[in-house]
């Protein structure tokens, strides 16, 4: 039963080897969906290209449903699957800083590596910025430590917080995503731009 590495069904080194192959799949899908182009990524914020929204939400829903079904069939123990902890303050402030970086730089970390892999110099410069930013945070950590650790809520699920089952929340998320996809398809026609 999964997850394989935490259940010690595969060794640490096998896990690392599989990580490499999973990464190849990750990079391949990102690049072939157009995520190696900052123009396509930034399009979501102006409506001319909404590929980010479509890929992102379809992926989150696919993985969420996959995990729920695999748990239902007894193929994976969800108690052993990592749920990101929630530190309310840093989740919001960190997200705001990342959002500003996104609209200025046109990439996020994963997509910048895809862009750099096919020769985008802007992506390589963005990556150089990432290293500076990560180092900068570590260097000045003392200033942010309080914010970093504030409002720790444990590892709550959204569904728990809203007092509904995982399945019901999943259904609502799918309906919300379909609504956004309809708006996205309309926006791409209304705000169409020439490619460059």
């Amino acid at each position, binding site marked *: 039963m*999964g997850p394989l590495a935490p259940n010690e069904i595969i060794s640490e080194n096998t896990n690392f080897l599989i990580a490499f192959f999973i990464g190849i799949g990750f990079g391949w899908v990102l690049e072939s969906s157009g995520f190696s182009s900052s123009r396509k990524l930034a399009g979501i914020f102006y409506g001319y290209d909404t590929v980010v929204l479509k890929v992102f939400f379809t992926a*989150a829903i696919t*993985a969420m449903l996959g995990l729920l079904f695999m748990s239902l069939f007894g193929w994976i123990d969800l108690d052993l699957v990592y749920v990101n902890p929630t530190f309310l303050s840093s989740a*919001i402030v960190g997200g705001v800083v*990342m959002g500003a970086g996104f609209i*200025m730089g046109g990439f996020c970390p994963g997509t910048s590596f895809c862009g750099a892999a096919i020769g985008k110099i802007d992506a390589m410069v963005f990556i150089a910025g990432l290293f500076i930013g990560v180092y900068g945070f570590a260097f000045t950590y003392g200033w942010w430590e309080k914010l970093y650790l504030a409002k720790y809520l444990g590892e709550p699920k959204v*569904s728990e917080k809203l007092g509904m089952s995982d399945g019901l929340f999943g259904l609502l998320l799918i309906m919300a995503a379909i609504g956004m996809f309809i708006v996205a398809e309309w926006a791409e026609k209304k705000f169409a731009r020439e*490619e460059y």
Partner: protein
Amino acid sequence: MNSNSTTGRSRKYLNPYLGGVLLGLVLLAANYVSGRGLGASGAIKSVVATTIETVDKDSFSTMPFMAEYAESHSGSPMKSWLVFQMLGVIVGGFLSGAFAGRLKLKVEHSPKITSRRRLIFALAGGVLFGFGSQLGRGCTSGSALSGMAVLSLGGFITMMAIFGTAFALAYFFRRNWI
């Protein structure tokens, strides 16, 4: 569909909904194998931690954020799941670009701005994203996407903060993109 080059180029990209399902399956595989989702900024942190440790061991001890991280990774911080995964991302991205004929050394930017301006904003954006990813405990991949798949409250909040802020600021940076 104004010109042939436009249709020809866009046809080469995957249908976004198909791309999303495939990305979701990759994320599902990551969870099934390792018990954790995908990530990108974590690998950068590993490289930064290793670099500081190698170059200047003394300053490392004055950086509790990095020292703690290195301690939690037995052996070398480079021996981490995300480092191997990110090496794969570079290979996968390169292969996809090679098969689609998209390998080209260039600065991609709107014709309305110079390469120089694009690169300055790319650097600034990278710095902010790198900083924010450490404060927010993960980036779009590790915190937002992977967090959402396991229904993490923090994942949803970070996702909304990233996209909400970028939408809110889009007006001020519009010259760079449209």
